């Protein structure tokens, strides 16, 4: 069976596990969640431009019950609000995406981006410091050389662990429109950043130029019919990437074909079901997230009501379609009014590509087992998530008689939305961001 329960919730407030925040600042809203390649670290970005990195506690004999707990490892301000005076535009500091680089030495590297600027951050530990300088004293004040009578060799002494984050690269001024995606290439030397109309390829070492590899801006902006909504590199083939559009299509491009990949190699589109046509058909078909499977054989896309799995070898329709919350189909007009229809939900694969997960409203999130075709709805909330409690499956009652534990569609809280989730690369540990709270759940191990 499936997802269960779990161990402690780690709230964004690191000071107390159960501290209840009286005033939640809007800048605390989590805007992205990402495990690193080993799953040891979990990074979150928020609307205030901050990045908080959690680290998994190593198992220890002393505290067995704390196995696998994630605690705050580092916090830093990645982006600040900026003002573009030329265009009279304020640039939000909200972190749109974080992507980790694979670890190549003792330090950790991640990319974080807001609407306009991508930054490469180095997160490193310092647990020793040099002591015994000759020319300065312990407080760092310079000593008068005349007072030095002996020389000594400074030694490194242990100190309290300090984790410091330093910006190593700033990739700026390459995007006219809002950046929605970044993706690290499997060559570990390049990455791409995508905005509404263009995708740029960067080399990590070079910040003052980037290659434009996709440009869908029409010569006449009035002819604009679609925008790029997400982009990702293939996990193994460094020449291949996909990007999704607001029209519900996915294009796979091969960078070997030409420098400017405006002509796709593959085009994935499912014909629309005319019986579902409505005013809001375009909006709900817009893809909000696209993710390659770990194997690289499939891609998963999320639109407003469904998650679809596509086989790279079949372009005319997805191989699997999962209804996330089809009961919202009759409520699209209200959801348009309150702007919820524009919410961009993400989707994630588990490590073995057998289960996919995505968020919904009322702090619900859904998992679909691709093999058994079973699905479950779970809720991320403090009331339901005591340590070592088991998450109870939830059910939304669509019509008719509501059973005891079911919740009716009209009672759903649309302000509580789970847009960002992450799955540990190899274990059944998931991170779920519910507005300004981060929940971490793991499969119960007896």
């Amino acid at each position: 069976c499936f997802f269960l329960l779990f161990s402690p919730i780690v709230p964004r407030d690191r000071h107390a596990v159960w501290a209840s925040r009286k005033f939640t600042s809007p800048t605390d809203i989590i805007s992205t969640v990402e495990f690193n390649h080993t799953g040891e670290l979990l990074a979150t970005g928020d609307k205030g431009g901050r990045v908080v990195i959690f680290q998994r506690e190593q198992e220890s004999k002393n505290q067995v019950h704390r196995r696998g707990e994630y605690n705050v490892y580092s916090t830093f301000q990645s982006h600040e609000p900026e003002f573009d005076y030329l265009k009279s535009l304020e640039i939000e500091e909200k972190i749109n995406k974080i992507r980790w680089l694979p670890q190549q030495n003792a330090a950790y590297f991640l990319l974080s981006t807001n609407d306009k600027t991508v930054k490469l951050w180095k997160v490193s530990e310092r647990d020793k410091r040099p002591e015994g300088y000759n020319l300065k004293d312990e407080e760092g004040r310079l000593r008068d050389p005349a007072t030095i009578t002996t020389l000594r060799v400074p030694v490194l002494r242990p100190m309290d662990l300090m984790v410091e984050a330093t910006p190593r690269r700033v990739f700026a001024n390459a995007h006219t429109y809002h950046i929605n995606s970044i993706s690290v290439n499997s060559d570990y030397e390049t990455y791409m950043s995508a905005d509404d109309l263009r995708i740029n390829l960067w080399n990590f070492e070079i910040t003052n130029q980037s290659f434009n590899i996709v440009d869908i801006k029409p010569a006449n902006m009035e002819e604009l019919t679609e925008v790029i909504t997400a982009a990702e590199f293939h996990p193994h083939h460094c020449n291949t990437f996909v990007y999704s559009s607001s029209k519900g299509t996915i294009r796979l491009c091969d960078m070997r074909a030409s420098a400017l990949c405006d002509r796709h190699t593959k085009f994935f589109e499912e014909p629309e079901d005319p019986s579902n046509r409505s005013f809001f058909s375009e909006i709900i078909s817009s893809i909000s997230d696209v993710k390659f499977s770990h194997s690289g054989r499939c891609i998963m896309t999320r639109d407003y009501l469904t998650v679809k799995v596509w086989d790279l070898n079949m372009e005319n329709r997805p191989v699997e379609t999962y209804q996330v919350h089809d009961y919202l189909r009759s409520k699209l007009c209200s959801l348009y009014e309150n702007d919820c229809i524009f919410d961009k939900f993400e989707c994630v694969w588990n490590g073995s590509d057998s289960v996919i997960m995505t968020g919904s409203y009322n702090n619900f999130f859904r998992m679909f087992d691709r093999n058994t075709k079973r699905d479950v709805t779970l809720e991320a909330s403090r009331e339901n998530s005591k340590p070592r409690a088991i998450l109870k499956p939830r059910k939304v009652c669509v019509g008719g008689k509501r059973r005891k534990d079911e919740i009716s569609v009209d009672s759903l809280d649309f302000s509580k939305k789970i847009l960002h989730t992450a799955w540990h690369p190899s274990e059944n540990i998931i991170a779920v961001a519910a507005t300004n709270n981060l929940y971490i759940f793991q499969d119960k191990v007896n």
Partner: protein
Amino acid sequence: MEFKLEAHRIVSISLGKIYNSRVQRGGIKLHKNLLVSLVLRSARQVYLSDPCPGLYLAGHPGAPAPPQQPEESAAGPPAGWGEPPPPAGRAAWPEPEPQPERPAVPEVLRAGDSEPAATVTAAGDTLQGGEAEAPEAAWRRVEGPRETAVGGAGGPAEVSGVFPEGPEAARGPCGCPPGDEDKLSAAPRVDGCRASRPAAAEPPASPPVCARKRGAGWVGGGPADCPAPGSTPLKKPRRNSEEQPGGAAAAAEEEEEEEEMETGNVANLISIFGSSFSGLLRKSPGGGREEAEGEESGPEAAEPGQICCDKPVLRDINPWSTAIVAF
């Protein structure tokens, strides 16, 4: 009628969103505005396609667009829409379009045969069928005539593009199979018979006529009565009237050919209080200038609830701006 009110509501909500987007932090979001403009276009088409006496006087009997047969539309009622009213309740269909518009039509058709043909089909699809390509069709319809028409002929191009057949295509109310009620598309028909009216496929022409009067109705929530036939002089619909929906979002960026995420145009489109529409309308030579000027005074006179139809400039104002003025 419910659809018309629903369409009103959606149009005003959409305009409100576009307006608010200009003051949001981080600048105008191109993606969201594009989506809103698509909804706005669909709602507007529904709204304008609603049968109303005199509404289609603005249309062109010689328009080449073949209205698709109602049975071709396959979409069910869109979400959020009520049940379509029974076709039997439909008011009498309006008479075919007034002759004065005719002369313009052949010109335009000559000017751009291929484009209007494409737009014709597209427009027909939009209104008749549940084609997924409705918004794209609308886009084509916008762009085609604009590119091919010259000056004032641009308007009729769009208009004519929508009417491949003349009044012959019109069938009496309830002439459509009853099943049509259930078939709604991106521009859901208020009744099953709407598809049969050639005039129904005439949003570009109607807006200047109806939107003006409707402005008051919109705000006041009163009955969306259409102007009496012949009571409102028809100006050639502006090409820009079609550009706006896409322009709503796209035009957010349209001003600058260089790399500027210029959002002035979206702001213009929805600027209720005084900004000119010059940016949006600039693309259209001649017409743009007129409208820009017209718009200057329009917004200033706009107060919620006021009827602005006494202003001669409203004739020149495309439906979007008129709606905004009234809004």
